[in-house]
């Protein structure tokens, strides 16, 4: 069996993590972390992760802060935010500065998200 592309999904909601993993398990090997810190740890262990999906609002480190730290590890890693919040100024500027490739709203559409993933991986 061909090795699936490895991606990471960071969200403080366990349920989101579990179900996401489940939904995409046929297409991606999804590493999950329930905080930015855990995500960074996982990224260090798994340098083959090729895509980062993060929730925006999390305790401690929020999505954009996490992604900024990710960029210090690997500047080329494509990142997106998947959040229940509406767009705001910070998101707009992050999109403009290409810190994040896309901003996807929850509840996400599987096909839409899949297309985004295919586009960058």
């Amino acid at each position, binding site marked *: 069996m061909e090795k699936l592309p490895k991606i990471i999904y960071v969200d403080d*909601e366990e*349920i*989101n993590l*579990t*179900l*996401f*993993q*489940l*939904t995409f*398990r*046929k297409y991606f090997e999804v590493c*999950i972390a329930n905080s930015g810190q855990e995500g960074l740890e996982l990224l260090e262990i798994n340098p083959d992760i090729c895509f980062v999906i993060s929730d925006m*609002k999390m*305790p*401690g480190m929020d999505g954009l802060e996490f992604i900024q730290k990710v960029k210090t590890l690997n500047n080329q890693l494509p990142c997106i935010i998947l*959040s*229940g*919040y*509406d767009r*705001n*100024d910070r998101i707009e500027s992050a999109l403009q500065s290409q810190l994040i490739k896309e901003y996807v*709203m*929850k*509840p*996400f559409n*599987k096909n839409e998200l899949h297309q985004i993933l295919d586009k960058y991986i």
Partner: protein
Amino acid sequence: MNSSKQSGKTNYISTSVFGRVMFMLLIVVAMWGGKVKAQVSPEEIKASLIIHFCDNIDWPSPLKGDFIIGCYTDDESVYQVLSNATKIVKVQGKTILVKRLNSLDDLEGCHALYYQRSYTSDLITFFKIARETNILLITDNYDDQLFVMVNIVDEVDRIGFRVNMANLTLAGFNVKANILLNGGRVVDIKKAYERFEQHLKDSRTRYERITQELARKESLLQQKDDIIQQKETEIDQYKNDIDSYTQELSALNSQIHIEQKLLDQKAEELNQKDGELDIIYADIEKKLDELAELRQNIDRLRSESDTLKTEIGQKNVVLNQQQVSLSNQRRYLMLLLGLATTLLIAAFALTSLFLLKKKHNRELEEKVVMRTKELQVKNEQYLSLFNLAPVSIWEVDFTAVKELIDSKELKDEKEYDRYVHQNPDFTIACFRKINFININSASLELYRVHSVDELAAFYEELYQAGALAGLENEFKALFQNKKRSNYEAIRMDKNGKRLDVLITWLDVSENNNAYSRVLLTMTDVTRLRKIESELRQHQENLEELVKERTDEIGTLNEELRIQNEQLYEANEELKTTNEELTEQKKMLDSALLELKQTQMQMIQSEKMASLGILTSGIAHEINNPLNFIQTGLYALELAIEEASVPKELVEDLQSIIEKMSIGIKRSSAIVKSLNMFSRKDSHVIRRCDIHEIIDNTLLILNHEIKGKCEVQKYFTEKSFVLEGNDENLHQVFLNIIMNSIQAIQSAGTLTILTEVKSNDKLEIRISDTGKGISKKILDRIYDPFFTTKAPGEGVGMGLSIVYKIIKEHRGTIQYFSELNKGTDVIITLPINNKS
């Protein structure tokens, strides 16, 4: 509220459990393959884990009796499995007794406690009691690792557990090494503590933020309250002012009323006085008439008296003539007598002649007797005339007086006057020389005396009393040898009554004996004079009265004029005050209106602002669970695909999943529209082509419009620049036009018109011929969540979003509608023509 929340939670659990179960089956089987049968449920795994823990931990003191495991859980399944297991398995060589706990009180006697609750708020209490009373606490998926002893954890691919050594040791338990054999891990206390700390810190920051926000809101509220209170006080003040003005006004009105009454009274008085004056005038007129009449009377009397006088004069002349002839005859008689005597002497000698002569004598004697008789008759006639005359006539002899005057031998009037002046007794001496010959009865009557002597005596009395004015003139006339004189004098009768008399005297003496017989007539003009003087006085009185009245009227008129002026002034003042008051009232009214409008706007904007803050929070909280469900559905679809499920069932399940997806999409749409309010005003503003935006909107809605309504567009050809956010403006027109189309039930017209107004505004008018909006509803159309559409067709956010966007663009929106006629929406947006 509570029940729905709980049921939601239950749903979520069952869904997640369902999802998990599908997956677990594979994992658990792989892991527990050797030990258990292929179909092992999570409950069974958990139950066996609980027994495993109990068997691998040593209690500080030896256990007595049965081994009691308390179950404090709202999941029956684990309890059921445990209960069944007691028949087969033993712990620490003792029979297991499973006990269902309902509260903290049931904990006594338990050796171990299985704790699994959806709400874990009381865990810490249980934890503390368990640690003190040596009860082994087994928790199921409890988040906080600091408050667990042994925690069962649902991991991604299996069911594991975490052991908190510190807590177990503190509770006096001794953990056997092989406890970890079944997939457990020791809790990383440091990490758990850090996580706890982080959580605490977050909570604190959140708490502080909320507190700050609350304080800010409170101060804002306070400020608003203050403003409202201030405005209210102002209004009260204005109301008071109006009240006092109204009172003043009514006071002034009543004053005017009183003054008008006074004026009326004065006018009435004036009228009355005028009437009186008229009467007086009439009186005067009458009196004047009377006077004229009296004058006529006097004139008549005068003429009568004149006639009488002439008559008397004539008679006197006749009398004189007769007397003259009589005296002549006497003389003749004397002569004849002398002749006769001579003849008698000669008769002796002449006897023959004697007889003849005797006869002739007799005849002569007869003639004389006859003449004498005639004379007597004449005299009697005169006397009777004298006596019966209606005017007082005196016959006086002034001879002695004249002699006395002449004896003084005064040369002229001057000398006479000087003499009279120097000799006051001269006049009385003269008076005493008057010889009253006769006076007629009219004179006696006039002076109220009975005889000439009495009159003479009375006259002297009068003279002594100095009441005979004018007498000197009489004497002077004598001196002047005047034959007649006329004068008016004041006399007095015997009774002391004043007499005004007109005195005329005429010397009728025979030629050689002047003033021996003077006729003096006195006409009584007392009544005439009295009437005259009365009349004069009356006239004077009248004149005075008239003058007085005229003066009075003048004063009154002046007073009235002044009062009138004052009244006019007061009236003017009142008018001005009234105008001022009206003006003030107008201003107050408009201020009140403005205030109300401002208040309404404030309320509306406050409503929108709070809704914005609220929705941004809610949106996130709703989107996450929606995401659970949606992603869960994707996972479920996958599971159905992979599991060998019968084809009919697959179709049913797919249909169910599709419907659930619709639900999620609908909820998500609501949340998205709510998000409009959490957006800040920092959207990109750029030049927009409003006509293109409207055309786009019509294009999007084409399928709704097609075959239903006719669209008429009248776009202005003037050029203008409109700046805004075209995404938001799209939404505005989409909402409004969608409403218009939906208002048209079968067929109708949609008219869209744009017009440049006063160079700085663009007016967009969207009219439909639809069913219209009732007045009752028209006020609420901008209220969030207000809708007349059926559930699922609209959330009721459309027009509130429209309102917000138009406000953000500094524009206005107004709805005009009539039931069954249609609705007009007028939007104005600011433009500029700088191009």
